[in-house]
């Protein structure tokens, strides 16, 4: 028992320093780093607004807020998965020469982007207030709940991608294509009401669908859609389980292929 507590506090330190490293390295300690992490989704929002509202005039209410509330969570997911491609390769000296649970390496990558998502939330709040959508009590538990679901989904993908990339070094291209497909197959730049009726049920196959729709209903309508949430949580846990099992299975080989 004592050893367990000791191990836990050591692992906590380990995750902490690895994540702090990621954060520090990414932004070299400058405040400007914060600007960069919110600038990307904001720019995307402006571009999509121009293309879809100004030019194509899609009939979505509150389109700016709609874009914002989908793009920030998307940014968290996509940058995590992107960074996890090279997470193990970039830490080759650690994997080969120090022994600690390897799944902490992609964990630090995902936590880094989780941190940036959390600090960019005030920007989303700003938009919500600006567009006079009511802030409700549901936010207090809705945000952490949705984050838990998205975290497991993201971490599961990051584990799988980082491990597989050691064996198939050209996985990067595939992941890029996959992310692009996923982006357009998720209702981030269009609303579900625009999707043909008979096709809507297929969206449930996309594990990001429930999460993004969850963020929409929280930020735009101020409530948690419980049915959808539970489905998305289940999907996230399955993806996490598969990713973790795959990572575990391959992790003995990491030091051999690096």
């Amino acid at each position, binding site marked *: 028992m004592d050893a367990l507590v000791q191990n836990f506090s*050591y692992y906590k330190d380990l995750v902490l320093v690895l994540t702090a490293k990621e954060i520090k390295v990414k932004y070299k300690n400058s405040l400007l780093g914060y600007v960069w992490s919110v600038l990307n989704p904001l720019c995307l929002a402006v571009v999509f607004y121009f293309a879809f509202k100004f030019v194509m005039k899609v009939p979505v209410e509150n389109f700016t807020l709609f874009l914002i509330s989908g793009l920030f969570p998307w940014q968290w997911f996509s940058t995590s998965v992107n960074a996890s491609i090279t997470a193990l390769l970039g830490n080759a000296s650690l994997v080969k*020469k120090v022994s600690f649970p390897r799944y902490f390496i992609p964990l630090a990558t995902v936590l880094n982007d989780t941190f940036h998502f959390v600090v960019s939330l005030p920007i989303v709040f700003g938009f919500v207030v600006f567009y006079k959508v009511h802030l409700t009590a549901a936010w207090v538990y809705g945000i952490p709940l949705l984050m838990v679901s998205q975290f497991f989904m993201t971490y599961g993908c990051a584990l799988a991608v980082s491990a597989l990339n050691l064996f198939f070094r050209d996985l990067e291209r595939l992941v890029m294509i996959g992310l692009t497909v996923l982006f357009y197959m998720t209702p981030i730049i269009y609303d579900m009401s625009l999707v043909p009726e008979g096709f809507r049920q297929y969206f449930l196959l996309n594990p990001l669908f429930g999460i993004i729709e969850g963020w929409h209903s929280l930020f735009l309508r101020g409530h948690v859609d419980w049915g959808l949430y539970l489905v998305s949580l289940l999907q996230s846990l399955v993806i996490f389980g598969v990713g973790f099992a795959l990572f575990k299975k391959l992790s003995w080989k990491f030091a051999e292929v690096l």
Partner: protein
Amino acid sequence: MKEPVIVFDGVTKTYPYYGYITAGLKMFLFNLPEAINHTKKSFTALREISFEVCGGECFGVVGNNGAGKSTLLGLAAGALKPDKGTIEIKGRVSPLLELGAGFHPELTGRENIVLNGVLLGMTRKRVVRKMDEIIGFSELEEFIDQPLRTYSSGMVTRLGFSVIAHLDPEILLVDEVLAVGDINFQKKCMDKIMGFRANGVTMVLVSHSLDQVQRLCDRAMWIDHHEIRAIGEPAAVCQAYQGG
């Protein structure tokens, strides 16, 4: 004699040929039959290795490049898994397979000390408590808040060794890291290693300096072409190794 803390029993380690796979998914799929055949073949890096290291002993390992010494330490550290045989380790292992594992060039010396210290098994609190001592040992006070990329390579290894010097190891695995820094610092490192030895730390030392092995070790092992050629008195083993 004390009881053994590291026991290798008939350990064989092979590396599969992953060439076709690591070249990428495309290569793998387009050359599927060959690729599958290829992954079945493997390269033997260590064959039927059996030896014991007792508590408090300093055990030297010598051998030509590619003989399998680093693989041996990787196995002892738990970074690699043997294909055959068993490995038994009793105690906390500090694998020093490389100085400054995990150092990042963009972080400052101080930040790297914390990172490296925790990676090597210290808690954060302990590293912070020892910080001044570590910086003092490295004699890099002036540069400690500069990013590591501005350090000379000797300064980086100095910093790396300074962290190690403040670990509290039970079993230390050292892979060719003792010849670091200038003459003064080398002497300091030697003193520290001697200090560990005096405190009863078990050490496995891979080195190409036969002089060092004879001076530091109680016993030594010569690995040649992935097999043990000689094991015993350091002087005798080194002589055999030199003789070919």
